[in-house]
């Protein structure tokens, strides 16, 4: 069989393609973006007509994936961890409806917050929804879990959550491919009201879910992804280790040259394998839990009162409470010494990310800062995207970045509280994702806020994916009731600085909702488009 060098994210994509998926639905977000991008550039996916166009947000993605499953085909929905918050409603309820065609929800967590606003652990969502969770330890497992996960979802008639973390998503290794499976054909659910969650039916479905969950525990005990080994034949071991997902690799890295044979339980499938855990627990004096993310397994093992004082991990300080794991943290937890020969010299200073030279967001903040000087600081609510870098020097322009779409609604709330003027700065993709409903709230109360939509015609921060509202923004604003006279369009360029400042000043003085659409193409996507065109011209010559 063929072997490919793949990122963890790409391995999931290839696994889904080979596992017979018919549709990939996603909104970009680090570290999950490469799953969908891989499918988009895959020749096989194209020839099979596998759906892979970006969705407007994670909620629409999960709903579309569920719709495809309803129709009998296999689907996958991909997102970063916080995307699952946005999709939480369809996600939770899809456990109650169950599936028809197999369905995977992939959530890529970002412990240490390399590119995120928190480090929430998606395994909680699996637990919460009573769904099976798969957590790969390496690229091969990422492939296998996507490949087998779709069929497994059909077997247990539930969506399956596939959880991975940044390091696995963005690390490459060889992956052995399996024989591609055919796609499903369209087929209705056996029960025509399976997906109708009226209370009477939802209660029935919930009981089914509870029954399935009990079976899932047994399945976990037998899963190939959960493996207990090195148990002492008689007597007890001093220390046993539970290693979840990628933590298993950090553990094995440290045990390569070790003489001690710790009993180890490798976990890659949830709900937790009770029998295996019980066996390990009874054969060891202490249990060390290694998991990347929150101490979920540790917490449930130790219990609220920690009566047996037997479990070690993030909660007793053996491992730092926050941040991602790495081989050195695991070494320390095992009582091994880590050694460094050189320190980071004092001359080395931090190099934070910054807006590109020539980026349109720069011109917007330069103009906005004039208004901030005139009307006072701390009145700018912003959002998530490249433009969030306006919080850093030299701009120091913005005062919030919470969740996608929050800029407009927070500005409205602050205006309700009596702040004036208030600004909201939001990107075009973020506006499409979650800003439209926010704007409608403001319009309905004619809140005196000045909204700047920084429209660079792309989803910049995540690498330049298509943006759902491109070409539609002024129509959307008008359509939901913003007064056309207060929808202003301007090109953010240095030469238009005075124009932008005077537009801002005019709109600040209007006691209602204004939207300033500052539109100029992202210079990264513009440069890429130019390069592609040159290459094309070369070829045609």
């Amino acid at each position, binding site marked *: 069989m063929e072997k490919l060098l793949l990122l963890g994210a790409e391995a999931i994509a290839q696994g889904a393609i080979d596992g017979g998926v018919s549709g990939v639905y996603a909104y970009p977000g680090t570290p999950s973006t*490469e799953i969908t991008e891989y499918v988009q550039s895959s020749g096989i996916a194209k020839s099979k007509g596998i759906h892979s166009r970006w969705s407007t947000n994670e909620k629409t993605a999960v709903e579309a994936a569920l719709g495809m499953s309803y129709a009998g085909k296999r689907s996958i929905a991909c997102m970063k961890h916080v995307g699952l918050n946005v999709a939480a409603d369809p996600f939770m309820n899809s456990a109650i409806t169950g599936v028809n065609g197999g369905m995977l929800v992939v959530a890529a967590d970002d412990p240490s917050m390399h590119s995120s606003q928190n480090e929430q652990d998606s395994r909680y969502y699996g637990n919460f929804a009573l769904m099976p969770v798969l957590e790969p330890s390496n690229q091969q497992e990422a492939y296998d879990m996507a490949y087998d996960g779709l069929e497994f979802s059909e077997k247990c008639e539930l969506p399956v959550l596939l959880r991975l973390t940044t390091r696995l998503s963005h690390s*490459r290794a060889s992956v052995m491919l399996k024989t591609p499976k055919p796609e499903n054909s369209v087929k209705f659910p056996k029960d025509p009201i399976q997906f109708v969650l009226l209370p009477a039916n939802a209660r029935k479905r919930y009981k089914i879910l509870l029954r399935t969950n009990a079976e899932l525990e047994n399945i976990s005990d037998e899963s190939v992804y959960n493996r207990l080994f090195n148990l002492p034949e008689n007597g007890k071991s001093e220390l046993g280790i539970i290693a979840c997902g990628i933590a298993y690799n950090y553990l094995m890295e440290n045990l390569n040259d070790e003489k001690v044979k710790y009993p180890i339980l490798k976990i890659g499938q949830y709900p937790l394998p009770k029998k295996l855990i019980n066996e390990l627990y009874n054969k060891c004096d202490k249990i060390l839990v290694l998991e990347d993310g929150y101490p979920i397994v540790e917490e449930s093992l130790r219990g609220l009162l920690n009566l047996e004082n037997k479990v070690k991990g993030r909660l007793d300080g053996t491992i730092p409470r926050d941040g991602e794991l*790495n081989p050195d943290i695991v070494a320390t937890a095992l009582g091994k010494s880590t050694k460094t020969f050189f320190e980071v010299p004092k001359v080395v200073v931090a*190099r934070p990310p910054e807006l590109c030279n020539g980026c349109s967001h720069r011109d917007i903040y330069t103009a906005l800062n004039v208004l901030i000087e005139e009307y006072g600081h701390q009145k700018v609510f912003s959002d998530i995207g*490249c433009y969030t870098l306006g919080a850093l020097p030299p701009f120091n322009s913005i005062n919030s970045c919470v969740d996608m779409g929050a800029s407009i609604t927070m500005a409205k709330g602050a205006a309700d509280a009596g702040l004036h003027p208030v600004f909201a700065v939001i990107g075009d993709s973020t506006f499409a994702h979650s800003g439209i409903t926010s704007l409608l709230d403001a319009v309905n109360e004619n809140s005196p806020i000045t909204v700047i939509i920084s429209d660079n015609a792309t989803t910049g921060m995540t690498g330049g994916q298509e943006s759902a509202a491109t070409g539609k923004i002024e129509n959307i604003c008008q359509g939901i009731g913003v007064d056309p006279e207060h929808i202003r369009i301007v090109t953010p360029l240095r030469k238009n600085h005075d124009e932008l400042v005077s537009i801002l000043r005019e709109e600040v003085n209007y006691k209602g909702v204004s939207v300033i659409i500052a539109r100029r193409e992202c210079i990264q996507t513009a440069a890429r488009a130019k390069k592609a065109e040159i290459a094309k011209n070369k070829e045609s010559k």
Partner: protein
Amino acid sequence: MKYDIILAGVGGQGILSIAAAIGWAALDSKLFIKQSEVHGMSQRGGAVQSNLRISSEEIASDLISFGSADLILSVEPMESLRYLPFLSDKGWLVSNSKPFVNINNYPPLEDIYSEIKKIKNHILIDAEKTAKEIGNYRASNIVMLGAASPFIDITYASLEKGIKTIFARKGEEVVSLNLRALEAGRKFAEDTR
């Protein structure tokens, strides 16, 4: 055999092309590899690094441990120092001398060079200058790879093959430029080591 490399630079400098070339060469030599990369926020002009691990045995961790990197290969001098705790006592530090200044408080260059020179096994090369001399400053990343090549446990022929593979779709000219860049970097390292 096991060889751990940290590639360092600033987002946008293209360190992943170096990783790709070494990766191809390693696979060609029937070795295992794991290569972790940085995507996302810090690609916007922030500090970036990639961990590249090559081994004749299967590799467990995607990340390199403290004190165990055999090579830090940096396309920017200050960035070469950021990951020093990962360098082993016998490891090599190979760095471009040309700074990428996108912050106000960039330290005096002499201070950076003097820290680099404190590492016994170091190569400091003006990769851009070398690349210009052989034809195009754009080949400076491959000059850096050439400068590190004497220390990497992979044959030179395999590295050449890797470069041919990676740049193939950009045409004969680009391939030949990068092969010359590799050679020029290697020659510099062998003359100065």
